[in-house]
């Protein structure tokens, strides 16, 4: 008698399962999943709020990232006492749009804060972000010194560090950095922006900056990164201070993959992603993909 080999047994089992599941309406699920959401969206146009909205739309809408009842942190760069035109801080309209979209997607509360490098009273006001975010319905508070707690970051450079607890308590983090020049890191984008969620002596991080920001990206894992390249700072970063270093790109790029967005930022700036020291480290760590050629990139134009 012929013995049932293991291979045949498995085949039978598979066929049986297939037959049992065939009548299910699989088609509905498949059609909902296609076309697959792009990895990176590039959105261009004159209105910051409209291109931000279009970028999120192209990614599948805010409800893909924010669930009903979520507490969301929208984390801009408002570290410096500079006006928005000087491109040292995230575009306030972009921040306000994200806040609005989160609330529309059912978020319970949207928080906006940054552990500013300069006096937060000045940075929050000068950057225009406090007014814009509050106007859109966000809770904007200064960082409370008591709420930093030393945590195990399990990083390569950052073993333990002071982390702002409110950033740990929220359900989702939406990282919205600005693309700009930075003398130590070359460019500061998404991963570097997460330094605004930690305390301690951040100056010392600059000795191992590339590794440190990768550690932060692995630790915080934002749900979405929206990179502001509406006005970029081409030199003298991260503070700038003169309009002659500001270039108007009218672009927003967004996606889930932190590495891909920073890589796209480098390309928008005119650099190869591999020139950014932190990207190979992050890709190797498995945080995302930096090879833009292999990613699904979608360009949208948001002009009225």
């Amino acid at each position, binding site marked *: 008698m012929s013995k049932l080999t293991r291979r045949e047994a498995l085949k039978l089992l598979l066929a049986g399962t297939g037959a049992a599941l065939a009548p299910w309406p699989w088609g509905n699920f498949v059609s909902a999943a296609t076309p697959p959401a792009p990895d990176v969206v590039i959105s261009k146009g004159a209105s910051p709020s409209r291109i931000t909205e279009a970028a999120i739309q192209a990614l599948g809408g805010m409800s893909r990232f924010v669930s009903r009842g979520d507490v969301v942190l929208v984390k801009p760069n408002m570290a410096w006492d500079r006006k928005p035109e000087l491109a040292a801080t995230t575009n306030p309209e972009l921040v306000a749009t994200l806040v609005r979209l989160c609330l529309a997607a059912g978020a319970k509360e949207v928080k906006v804060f940054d552990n500013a490098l300069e006096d937060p009273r000045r940075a929050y006001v*000068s950057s225009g972000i406090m007014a814009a975010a509050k106007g859109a319905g966000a809770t904007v508070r200064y960082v409370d010194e008591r709420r930093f707690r030393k945590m195990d970051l399990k990083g390569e450079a950052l073993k333990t560090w002071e982390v702002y607890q409110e950033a740990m308590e929220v359900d989702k983090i939406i990282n919205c950095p600005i693309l700009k020049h930075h*003398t*130590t890191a070359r460019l500061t984008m998404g991963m570097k922006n997460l330094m605004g969620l930690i305390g301690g002596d951040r100056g010392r991080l*600059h000795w191992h900056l590339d590794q440190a920001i990768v550690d932060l990206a692995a630790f915080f894992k934002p749900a979405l990164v929206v990179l502001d390249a509406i006005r970029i700072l081409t030199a003298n970063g*991260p*503070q700038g*201070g003169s309009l002659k270093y500001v270039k108007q790109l009218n672009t927003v790029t967004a996606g889930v993959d932190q590495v891909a967005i920073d890589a796209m930022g480098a390309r928008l700036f005119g650099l190869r992603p591999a020139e950014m020291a932190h990207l190979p480290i992050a890709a190797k760590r498995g945080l995302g993909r930096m090879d833009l050629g292999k990613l699904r990139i979608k360009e949208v134009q948001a002009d009225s």
Partner: protein
Amino acid sequence: MALFTLTAYKGTDEIAYPVRIFLRFDPLILVTTLLSSHVVPTALLLSLITVFFTLVFGRVFCGWVCPLGTLNDCMGRLTPKENRRKPLGDQLRRLKYYGLVFILVSSLFTLQIAGLADPISLLIRSLAVAVEPAINLMAHTLFDLLYRAHIPVVTDVSEAVYAFLKNYVLAFRQPFFYQGAFIGLIFSAILLANLFRRRFWCTALCPLGALLGIITRISPFKRVVGKGCTSCNLCVKECRTGAASDVKGEWKKAECVLCGECQEDCPEDAVRFGFFPALGPAVGRGKVAGIDLQRRGLITSLVSGILIVPIVRTTPLAKRRAGRLIRPPGALPEDEFLRRCVRCGECMKVCLTNGLQPALLEAGLEGVWTPRFDFHSGYCQYYCTLCGQVCPTGALRKLSQEEKARTKIGLAYIDKNRCIPYAQGVECLVCEEHCPTPDKAIKFEQVEIMTPRGRQRIRRPVIDLKLCIGCGICEYKCPLHDQPAIICTRLGESRADELLPF
């Protein structure tokens, strides 16, 4: 007090209605500024209103306006009974006039030290440098304790209260001040003197009180004790400044702060205040005591007021200023600055970074408690112009943001023996990142160096002395906290207008 907390910063460029309003009504500051620097600070002309009221009524300012007087009255409630009834001796009363003469004479010889003893300056300084930091610390400690204990309902309530206090009352960040304890001790001594005699400061020491006391001599406002007086001496016992008298005694007009309590307390309703009361229906005589200074004391204070000038001005620091004495932006040239600054400490209170600190001897004996930058405590924020906005005497000019950005308060120098890229051959760059000038005053040079790891190209910071404004943020942020590898000195400050090699 409310105004004091209002002198806080909310993020805009201008600051609302600050506490200096009291200083503007202070004629002592007007007179001494006038004498020492021969200018009339227009804002201080408001104090002529005080002079007018004093001429007409008397020391109403002391009784009804002066915040230190009010505080003394509050403390006066603690005066032991046996001390309440004893009036202050004339010897002590005269002290304030001698002090006034001393201050006026020295300011005539261009030494401005009125601010040390002027009640308004003294109060604002004490609150800013000593009281507020202490209250802040206590509040933070208390609420921190409750926050960490995390008791269900209690912590929720305490956090709500704390949020409110933080928003409206407490300082944004815990302030730290050199000499806070010293200035606080003097302030406590003044308040505790109430235990010896009520309003001891006002009657024995206050130079502004003395000035107003002299002015009030020609005021037509009088206190009259009428015929009903039974010499029960209730008014004498209850008078907080020991100025009241019964029908036989003399009213010490220069001491009276017109609180009106004697009129209210008199069981026979015999005490009246009014203009030319002798013509009115109330019968009785108002005898008025003179100020009665002794020639010996007057000459002593006059001579010492003259001698103090060479004494403080012959220290070596008066000859050559210390390099680390960095003044706030907008400060007048040093001589002029010292003649105007009244050490009220408002600039230190509003300084965003807590970088402005009271000097002790850094500016010579003459500059005690004048503001100086300490770049260990803070730095000068690039766009901030608050110190110039609150200065009551114009010792710090009010600068526009453009002017501020151009004003050099010093220059930065790198200590290459400590700076990490120079000393260790490792890139660091924190100073460059924070340098706020639009074209960075800290730039990089690319160099190839020999390290234990072989030949390497690194970037090292260099300073462009033309662009550096000496704001001190590089020194403050330098990761070598113990002894920064980049420091600012006062060389090159705009106000000195010195010829420099670059």
